[in-house]
């Protein structure tokens, strides 16, 4: 029995060695590699939109925009979405270019912008509808990819059916707010803002409960929007997005709109306004010290470009 076992072991070793040797001597080349469909990206006959994206975004800023349907770019495969209408693509992308790219490039330079801007824009024609009744405006992944929804609903001056009262705030709050918000995240994830920022409204952040609040309620606690009150980082980028898309005058108006009295958390009007002012000051200083950007000048450029669009 014992001997048998030794034999067994020897043979096993021999067999292993044998087969290994034979196999490895056969693997000198990996064989023919065929033209694998879709490897290296899909292609189609380029049209005027592809040319516009190439000339206006890819060449100057190394940003690509995917407007043709690809289900797998969207996070949730169970959702029903539709691709954008071709006629919407250039108006949307050029609006983003005018109200986000150009102000940053003019203020901070192309090197800064090309280094930190997200590189992939994915467009969905429809909104993404969530089961509890809300809709998703946009999402960002890892500072690289931004998904914008509702592209077919986008309208600016000069497009058929444009209604200034409805559409200007839609474009501002929807597309431009989203992109400025996401870019704010990229900036603070690269260089964190001063820690004092977190102390300003420290006791009033409320996490996921923000959805039960209105923006007006949040302002009485010293937050610029309800979403601001969800977390430090969101507060920081919501401030950036609101200050840039509302402009200086618009921001002043929001601060001054806080009513007399104290909020349900016991914050007075003066305290809430002071909190917003402190946050504003830290952001302006952060832009100056970290990125050498004059925030107020950037703000003016964003607003000026927006005024031409609506």
């Amino acid at each position, binding site marked *: 029995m014992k001997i*048998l076992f030794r*034999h*067994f072991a020897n*043979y*096993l070793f021999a*067999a292993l060695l*044998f*087969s*290994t040797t*034979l*196999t490895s001597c*056969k*693997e000198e080349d990996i*064989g*023919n590699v*065929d*033209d*694998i*469909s*879709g490897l290296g990206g*899909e292609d*189609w*006959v380029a*049209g005027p939109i592809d040319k516009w994206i190439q000339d206006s975004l890819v060449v100057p800023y190394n940003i690509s925009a995917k*407007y*043709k*349907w*690809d*289900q797998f770019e969207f996070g949730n495969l169970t*959702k*029903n*979405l*539709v*691709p*954008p*209408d*071709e006629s*919407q693509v250039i108006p949307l992308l050029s609006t983003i270019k005018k109200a986000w790219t150009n102000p940053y490039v003019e203020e901070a330079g192309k090197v800064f912008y090309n280094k930190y801007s997200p590189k992939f824009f994915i467009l969905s*024609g*429809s*909104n*993404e*509808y969530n*089961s509890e009744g809300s809709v998703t405006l946009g999402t960002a992944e890892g500072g690289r990819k931004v998904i914008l929804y509702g592209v*077919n*609903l986008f309208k600016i001056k000069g497009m058929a059916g444009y209604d200034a009262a409805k559409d200007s705030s839609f474009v501002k709050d929807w597309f431009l707010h989203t992109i400025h918000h996401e870019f704010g995240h990229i900036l603070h994830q690269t260089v964190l803002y001063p820690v004092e920022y977190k102390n300003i409204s420290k006791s009033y952040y409320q996490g996921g409960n923000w959805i039960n609040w209105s923006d007006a309620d949040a302002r009485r606690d010293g937050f610029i929007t309800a979403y601001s009150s969800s977390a430090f980082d969101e507060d920081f980028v919501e401030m950036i997005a609101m200050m840039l898309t509302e402009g200086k005058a618009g921001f002043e108006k929001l601060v001054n709109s806080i009513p007399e009295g104290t909020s349900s958390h016991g914050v007075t009007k003066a305290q809430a306004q002071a909190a917003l002012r402190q946050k504003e000051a830290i952001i302006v200083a952060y832009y100056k010290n970290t990125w050498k950007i004059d925030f107020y000048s950037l703000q003016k450029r964003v607003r000026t470009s927006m005024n031409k669009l609506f």
Partner: protein
Amino acid sequence: MKNSLLYLLFLTTVFFSCENKDDTVFEESADVRLNAALASYEKQLVEAPYGWNAIIYPGGGGSYGFYFKFDDKNRVTMYSDFSDAAAAKSKESSYRLKAMQTPSLIFDTYSYLHVLADPDEEVNNGVRGEGLKSDFEFSIYSDSVKTDVITLVGRKNQSRLVLTKATQAQATAYTNGDLAKALLFNNIAKYIPYFKRVTLGANTYEITVNQDTRTIKMTWLNGNVPKTFSTSYYMTPGGVAFTSALVNGSQTITGFSNITWNANSTQLGVSGGGASGVVVSAIKPISVDLAAARRWWQAPVESGGDWRSENGFHVNGVDDAFKVKDLKYNNLSYAFYMYAPAFNSRYDAFAPIFYDEDGIYLEYGHAPAKPTFTADGRVVFTEFGAFGDIPVGGAAEKSGALLFDTSGFYLIQTSDETYDMVSAKDAKSWITWE
């Protein structure tokens, strides 16, 4: 014995690891064959000289007619029977073929086809977040690709898309706007009375059209025996096409052609089954379903539910004629109009139902006595009492006055669980119960 088995095992291991040839069942690799398949499908789509007639059967039901013309630059031009505008004017968008789990045809920018799939319910009157559960990405299965017919399956909602090679005459008809002429058939909804009939040759048919689900029901009498036939339909430049044909003795109807519409006289003309006729209105069904009224009343009694109507009464061509949808009660919003048979042992309930975040409420309404069912198939309601204070001159008071009309109502079963209750006086008012 045990040992030799073991040695044999080792031996085979050795042999297999030596055997390193790339012989496959197929002459070419999967990638070569896949690329060839994609190229051949694209070639077939592009090289149809007059494009393709298409019918899509969305996962959510119904059937819709399309026309596609593909070119070799990833562009497709189409017409659709979904709206008058889409039938009259073509729209160009893009498509591509892509290797996914199967070779797939993707309509990759917005087109008339996407209108059905749009999750925005305002676009297609579908369900918010789902639309009509249609598709714009389709799997191609090689056994469903024939020279003149290609059948595709939607990747998301399993819609079926059937492409049939078009003739030169068909292509010309689309560009001439003939599809828009076929859509004149939709005017059948403008007849004021509920019942519509058309006489084609020797036969008179009652036509019931549901434009939301794209179904047509035809009812006729074979001697005294009522016969019914239901089919989905879609539009082509030739008129209305049935997805299955009606066979009535020697007459076979595959659809309606030569659609004409006279707006002044509200008259729709059609041809079908080798004859032509004008659609006329009627005040009662061609064949009364004598048991329908009692069946309608009894169903919720047995299941423990009630009948609900979102829109209330349709009167003289006006949906929600009494504006029940605008009803409010303090802070409560209108939910639906209810008919609850055997609400208790003495009476039924016919009332608007209100809701807030906590629940639904009956605040006021009518209490009909148990209705009478006449021998000729009508149901007649009489007032037993009332719940609460019914606002004078309001929607509920008007709805009640109509309900208690002494002529009563016919009940028309429209599906397993839906009925239309149509005024027996003139067939100009009705309410849909679901």
